């Protein structure tokens, strides 16, 4: 059983839902990423999405784009991100790490080399935003060969026939994008999300995470009632952005604990 599967299995047995915070590697400074990862786990994260900074993050809103820009000031590339995962793994063998990013940094490294290095570093899943399943068959096989999960997005506009194609290639969990827009956009429509998640469940037994519009504890609670996992990205990055060096960890932990409590209250 992979680390991701085992987290979902354990939570299910406890009747709980997963909290998956997102942070961008290297934001606000590369030295703070590994301490932040540990702090998130300590405050209640079940899994972490670690963003690979990219110069042109087309699917992201302004908040996560700014995080990428802050990280890139420090020349934060994919190799360094993998080194951070490795450093995190030195003392944490249980919390899954999912890398989230864009295709070009992976292609620049070469997908075969990336998969080998990701495996060695202890990466559990990879979500490549601009790799729809039709364009990444070889990469997907390489990931499968290394027992790394391929996480795919489903959107409000994804037709059932396409969902069928995607769930065949997806492993670990599915990430349902809760609104039409970029990360951190307007408020999500919980009734619509509920309907769509129920439809997706008829096509797959994979756990379903929901993200892209979870702005506070109240939304997190609503989403937790429907989905298997709640992904919180832009709101988490805002907590990092608004902090200074002294209260960075405390800020992020306060938010994570609030979200944890909300999710567990379902």
């Amino acid at each position: 059983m992979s680390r991701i599967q085992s987290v979902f299995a354990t939570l299910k047995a406890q009747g709980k839902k997963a909290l998956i915070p997102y942070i961008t590697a290297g934001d606000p400074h590369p030295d703070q990423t590994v301490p932040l990862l540990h702090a998130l786990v300590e405050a209640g994260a079940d899994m972490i999405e670690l963003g690979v900074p990219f110069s042109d993050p087309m699917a992201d809103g302004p908040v996560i784009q700014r995080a990428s820009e802050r990280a890139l000031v420090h020349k934060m590339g994919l190799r360094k991100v993998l080194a951070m995962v490795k450093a995190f793994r030195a003392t944490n063998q249980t919390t899954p790490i999912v890398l989230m990013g864009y295709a070009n940094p992976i292609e620049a490294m070469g997908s075969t080399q990336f998969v080998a290095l990701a495996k060695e570093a202890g990466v559990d899943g990879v979500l490549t935003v601009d790799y729809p399943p039709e364009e990444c068959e070889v990469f997907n096989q390489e990931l499968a060969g290394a027992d790394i999960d391929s996480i795919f997005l489903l959107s409000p506009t994804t037709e059932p026939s396409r969902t069928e194609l995607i769930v065949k290639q997806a492993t670990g969990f599915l990430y349902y994008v809760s609104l039409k827009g970029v990360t951190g956009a307007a408020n999500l429509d919980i009734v619509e999300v509920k309907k769509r998640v129920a439809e997706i469940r008829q096509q797959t037994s994979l756990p379903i995470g929901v993200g892209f519009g979870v702005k506070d504890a109240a939304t997190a609670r609503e989403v937790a009632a429907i989905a298997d996992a709640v992904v919180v990205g832009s709101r988490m990055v805002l907590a990092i952005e608004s902090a200074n060096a002294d209260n960075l960890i405390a800020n992020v932990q306060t938010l994570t604990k609030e979200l944890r409590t909300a999710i567990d209250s379902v």
Partner: protein
Amino acid sequence: MQVYDMPDERGHFGPFGGVFVAETLVEALEELRVMYEKYRHDPEFLAEFAYDLKHFVGRPSPIYHAKRLSEKVGGAQIYLKREDLNHTGAHKINNTIGQALLAKRMGKPRVIAETGAGQHGVATATIAARLGLECVVYMGAEDVKRQAPNVFRMKLLGATVVPVESGSKTLKDALNEAMRDWVTNISNTFYIIGTVAGPHPYPMMVRDFQAVIGIEAKDQMQEMIGRQPDAIVACVGGGSNAMGIFYPYIDVEGVRLIGVEAGGHGLSTGQHAAPLTANSPIGVLHGNRTYLMQDEDGNIIETHSISAGLDYPGVGPEHAWLKDIKRAEYVAITDEEAMTAFHNLCRTEGIIPAMESSHALAHAEKLARTMSPDQVVLVNLSGRGDKDINTVARLANITL
């Protein structure tokens, strides 16, 4: 003879092209692909497009024999395909009319566009005004400063111009922002991409709408000189004017196709926008796989060109393919060389060319010198230079 038939049904030109977008955009692109397939051979749609090209744009654009320039250069005869004489002053209008007519048929009341030099933004705002569509144009904040007259033109035409402050504040960032708008407003919005880049079907669709340039040129050259030119030269940023004139000539033997990229301060300085000529690595950006200017981590690097319309780190995937199969050649022209060619055309022919097109002119001069007077070089004069007079004046330390 082999018949060129690209791209494949998923938009691949060999290893290039494709649909590299987030899942949130996939259905919108599929809808567009299906609708374009439906209308691209529809006689009624094509007749409406042809009508607008004739009566609204003023097509066919003439071909002009630049005799004094040819004499001054010494060598081959230089002919100009006068896209600068189109309504709005550049080739961009051909494509925006095609896409706007498609938007109308798809029932989308709102169009958005990205723009670099502003020509595509103006062309989009123009057709939006004519068809009564709401229009929002994204433009890098840096380009808004460089191209103030075009910004004002768009506003006069009723468009909203949004300056983009992220990243390098140029064309690529405007494209990112337009994509974000599209993904958020998919149900009522049509994204009019201005070049032969982006995800499928854009590179093919924009090429098809621009192919009128090459189709006309074939007839016109036959009529003027009784044969086809020995070489065709066009500037390449994303590459839409070049694709438009190259495409009908791909299967015509004996015609060299030469794309001219922006060499900026020179390829050795790294400050340019010439991914094909500089042998940049292959990568994925803006929905397609192509040659891309990037650093070792795969982040896109900032480009430089005197011409905002060529200031783009990638290039249309079909150009990448034509380079690989050696059907087209690609070269670079520096800012300085383009400026010299700009002045040459002004003084010898009474035509003020766009700074983009001046890159093609500069290479055509070099090439013509190596050829004999009975040979012919056809240059795609993609736009007029009125929009660039501030840039030219500033470089000469003149305040207008």
